[in-house]
């Protein structure tokens, strides 16, 4: 029996529906749509040809053939499973080439090579894109009507680098850091700050394997953070006007970026006093003192402490001090540390950063959250302690060496063997961004041809700025400084009863799981580059369009159902496809013939979708 293709046209219909919905519900960021000037196939003027890039650009889509995978059941297969699992933890998703490269080197060698790779920065590429499109890099003024197009470019760059850059570990760690040192342009506060956001990402990349103390200071002096947590233009008390310093950055810097609310043991557990009560790390008086520390800062180009002189350049330069509104009185910080009266804004800030950085909580507080973002939601106390010890001392007496911390996180026996020791709990729910990135890396997302209003090709782009609508998550788009989810979130029911935490479940709701699953379908069915019915081009105003996939390798093995499923199993489930499900799937997809290219592709889509929508794919283990 051969399957007619028509029943699967639901995907196309669904697409139209979601596009329509997008047009109807455009909110803050807007979802483009170019006034409905159709991007859907058949409605657009003739396509400009996409020329393959001439030089070997490391960020160009992968079109090279894959090495041969080992056969299931072999020793090499088992090694490939281990490698794939490691790459789920350490990159935006395993690829066959990535798995293959790990066959020859150890985990530690791979980590060391990643540490030493040059950084793939976002801002330079963003500026390059602006130039290519004839958009000014530094427009004066930054007109609000430019903001959406600039933000689309920034998002393209984020996705293309995250999916394709060689320094995967650094990009993945920076993504984790962006969920601790949160800034977000979901509200109007950081509107039209695309260069600033790309630069903020670059700061996280720069310090991802660097010194935590420097990272903390870079974040504190960043003008986007200054705006986001209103440290910018914060001034000393004015008794006549009854004005006192803003407490926003002071509070969240301690609560979220460094030490947390209560004293911790080295293993991340809460330290208790003699009455079995938690011990607060600070009180309102401490907050007020830090609020006074963080007075007197504005953008680098400001003439006065109160100037509002925000430009595309001031977004990317550290703030500068205005001593005349800096509070010069004495201040008592954590642990009774006194900052003497008369210090400059810079001296106070340096000392305050040192004061926070040397607090005993930082090691366990930051280590545990990094483990949660990268490895598992519920690390054992001893795992946290081992990493926190490295945070406190990298072996050479240095505190806050993030390279050593990251290495300790990945080389830890629990990261390597946690699954075997605790098969029912180890790991984490994949956040939606990592789910899509895993799919798009596995199947070599090629982007979509975006065209300008004049129908000139902009380039092949990963266009996903509007990811929050379908996924409930967008990089740098969290609802507040408290990130998309809290590290202590417990899913009601079995997880809560087991006293475990499950941060990512906070955004897996009945409504988001449906839209996520439907988006997976839209991203798989009919999305491979060889589909003759693909849209010829995509309007420049779209903010979501699933990229084209390169399924050449999958089509090659599609004739053998078992081979096809094994390959997908390794890439998507890291060898966790059960025999039972494999048998059921084999029958199901075996119904689809491989007589034609179209039906072969259909067999591949169906197989990918049935694995990508599975609970196994949803969880990183």
């Amino acid at each position, binding site marked *: 029996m051969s*399957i007619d293709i028509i*029943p699967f046209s*639901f995907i196309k219909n669904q697409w139209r529906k979601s596009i329509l919905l997008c047009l109807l*519900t455009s909110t803050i960021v807007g979802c483009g749509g170019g006034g409905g000037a159709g991007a859907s196939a058949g409605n657009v003027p003739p396509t400009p040809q996409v020329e393959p890039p001439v030089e070997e650009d490391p960020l160009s889509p992968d079109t090279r053939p894959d090495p041969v995978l080992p056969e299931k059941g072999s020793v090499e297969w088992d090694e490939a499973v281990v490698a794939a699992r490691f790459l789920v933890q350490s990159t935006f998703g395993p690829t066959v080439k990535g798995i293959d490269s790990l066959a020859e080197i150890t985990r530690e060698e791979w980590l060391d090579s990643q540490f030493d790779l040059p950084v793939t920065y976002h801002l330079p590429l963003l500026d390059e894109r602006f130039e290519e499109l004839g958009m000014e890099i530094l427009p004066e003024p930054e007109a609000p009507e430019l903001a959406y197009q600039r933000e689309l470019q920034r998002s393209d760059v984020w996705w293309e680098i995250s999916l394709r850059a060689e320094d995967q570990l650094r990009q993945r760690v920076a993504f984790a850091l962006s969920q601790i040192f949160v800034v977000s342009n979901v*509200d109007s*506060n950081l509107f039209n700050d695309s260069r600033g956001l790309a630069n903020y990402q670059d700061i996280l990349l720069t310090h991802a394997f660097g010194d935590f103390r420097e990272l903390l200071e870079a974040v504190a002096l960043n003008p986007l953070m200054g*705006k986001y*947590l*209103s440290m910018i233009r914060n*001034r000393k008390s004015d008794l006549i*006007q*009854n*004005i*006192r*310093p*803003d*407490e*926003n950055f002071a509070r969240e810097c301690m609560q979220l970026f460094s030490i947390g*609310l209560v004293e911790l043991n080295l293993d991340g557990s809460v330290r208790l006093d003699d009455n079995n009560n*938690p011990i*607060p790390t600070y009180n309102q008086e401490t*907050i007020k003192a830090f609020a006074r520390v963080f007075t007197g800062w504005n953008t680098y180009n400001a003439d006065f402490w109160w100037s509002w002189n925000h430009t595309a350049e001031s977004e990317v330069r550290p703030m500068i001090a205005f001593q005349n509104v800096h509070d010069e009185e004495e201040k008592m910080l954590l642990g009774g540390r006194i900052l003497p009266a008369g210090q400059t804004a810079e001296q106070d800030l340096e000392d305050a950063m040192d004061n926070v950085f040397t607090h005993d909580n930082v090691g366990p507080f930051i280590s545990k959250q990094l483990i949660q973002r990268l490895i598992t939601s519920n690390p054992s106390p001893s795992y946290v302690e081992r990493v926190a010890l490295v945070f406190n001392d990298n072996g050479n007496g240095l505190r806050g060496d993030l390279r050593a911390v990251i290495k300790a996180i990945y080389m830890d026996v629990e990261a390597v063997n946690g699954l075997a020791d605790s*098969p*029912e*709990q180890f*790991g*984490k*729910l994949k956040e939606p961004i990592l789910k899509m990135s895993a799919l798009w890396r596995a199947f070599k997302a090629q982007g979509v041809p975006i065209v300008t209003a004049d129908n000139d090709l902009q380039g092949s782009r990963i266009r996903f700025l509007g990811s929050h609508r379908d996924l*409930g998550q967008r990089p740098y788009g969290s*609802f*507040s400084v*408290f990130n998309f989810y*809290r590290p202590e979130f*417990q899913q*009601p*029911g*079995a*997880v*809560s009863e087991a006293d*475990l935490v*499950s941060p990512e*479940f*906070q*955004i897996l*709701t*009945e*409504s988001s*799981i*449906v839209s996520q*699953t*439907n988006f997976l*379908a839209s991203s798989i069915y009919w999305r491979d580059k060889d589909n003759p019915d693909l849209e010829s081009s995509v309007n420049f105003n779209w903010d979501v369009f699933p990229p084209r996939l390169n399924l050449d390798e999958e089509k090659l093995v599609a004739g053998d159902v078992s081979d096809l499923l094994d390959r997908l199993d390794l890439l998507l489930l890291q060898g966790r496809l059960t025999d*039972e*499900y494999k048998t*059921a799937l084999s029958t*199901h997809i075996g*119904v689809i013939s491989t007589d034609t290219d179209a039906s072969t592709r259909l067999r591949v889509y169906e197989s990918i979708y049935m694995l990508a*929508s599975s*609970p196994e794919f*949803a969880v990183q283990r």
Partner: protein
Amino acid sequence: MKKINQPRSRRCFLKQCAGVLAGSATMSATLTRLQLANAQAVGNDYKALVCIFLFGGNDSYNLIVPTSSSQYQTYSDVRQNLAIAQDELLSISPITDTGVAYGFHPSMSSVRDLFENDTLSVIANVGSLVEPVTKSTYLNNTAVKPPQLFSHNDQQNFVQSLSTGIAKNGWAGRAADTLASINDNQRLSMNISLSGSNIWQSGRNVIPYSISGQGISTLTGLDGASVDGFERNRAEIYRTLLENSQSHLFEQEFSRVQLRAWDLAAEISVAINDLEPIETVFPEGNRLATDLKMIAQLISARDALDVRRQVYFVGMGGFDTHGGQNNTQPELLSTLSEAMNAFNSSMIELGVQDNVTTFTASDFGRTLTSNGDGTDHGWGGHQLVMGGAVRGREIYGQMPSLEINSDDDIGEGRIIPTTSIDQYGATLASWFGLQAQDFSDVFPNLANFDSVDLGFMNNV
């Protein structure tokens, strides 16, 4: 436990009987049926509570402001550059004359009108409390206080859970645990969220159901009743995969959410699509209004969905006005005001105005003093309650002194609440039908307060 309004209806009597006869599930089910039959005979037995949560900590000291000259002067002195001009405030005429005149923020004309036509009241200076706190018990550290005052997520947790330890569930969740059997439809949770996960609606058993204000999507290509045999087969394989319990806890949980979503989206879509559309015009570009409209649609489908009690949660963000408060607050408050007004109109249109009570909550109030460009995290703040069952046009509780360093102020104009969340919630829950014996569990701090019903609901 003092002064709890005694349950009035015969339903309660039957419920107590159910307790006496406990042990027989069938008997309980029969009694529940009886209660419902009885209730239906009495009238239209449907009630919904709608919580509008103002995320970030609403600066309610600019929402309702004294307009009498000396009190206004105090307000204006403390708020300085954040004060609303006296002649811009929208004056109101509360039923009880306290001698001090008040007005709403100029961007809340709809809320003022709702107040004036007896549909809305203000609950003054509500906040997180374990027990009553005075300035001296606060300063000498003898008062038992909620953990981590002034921290956003901790205070959201306390307001929603009323727990001083690690919060596992919230008061709407615990209330729903005891009331759940009243709904014939046991597939759909009593507690529905338009804003995703929240502790308020999570019970020991009850798990809130999340829905999007943008509409209900069903899983595409997975219709188990499709005319297409291949799709039916796909749906069957996928369902089997989800139902076969995986060993991993998170995979099991993913499957549970997916199955619930899959089945309920289909059921609710059918229920809503069969109804007359709501004619009330909701404001455009107003996310809260969009969410409230979805709630109105779900309420209009109450018979199709076979439910008698519902608790809705909808959040609105942006209230953490440390910076730019003078620019953002007018828009925030007008968004809130217009959305509440449209929702009230839709409840009138559906003929359920007396059956649905809407109330606001927030992380905390904000400082009276300015940081130059906004306000910082405070404690007590004012809230709004709206609906046909609300005793409208009144200010309940005590308005605090707005003088800096008054007995109400612990510093910088952080105001000690004089009404607790437990009291506020218990008054709402009493109207909703929570049984007398369940109050101490649902509102664990209630016993520490004298008054356990604030009197703002018509409980008959």
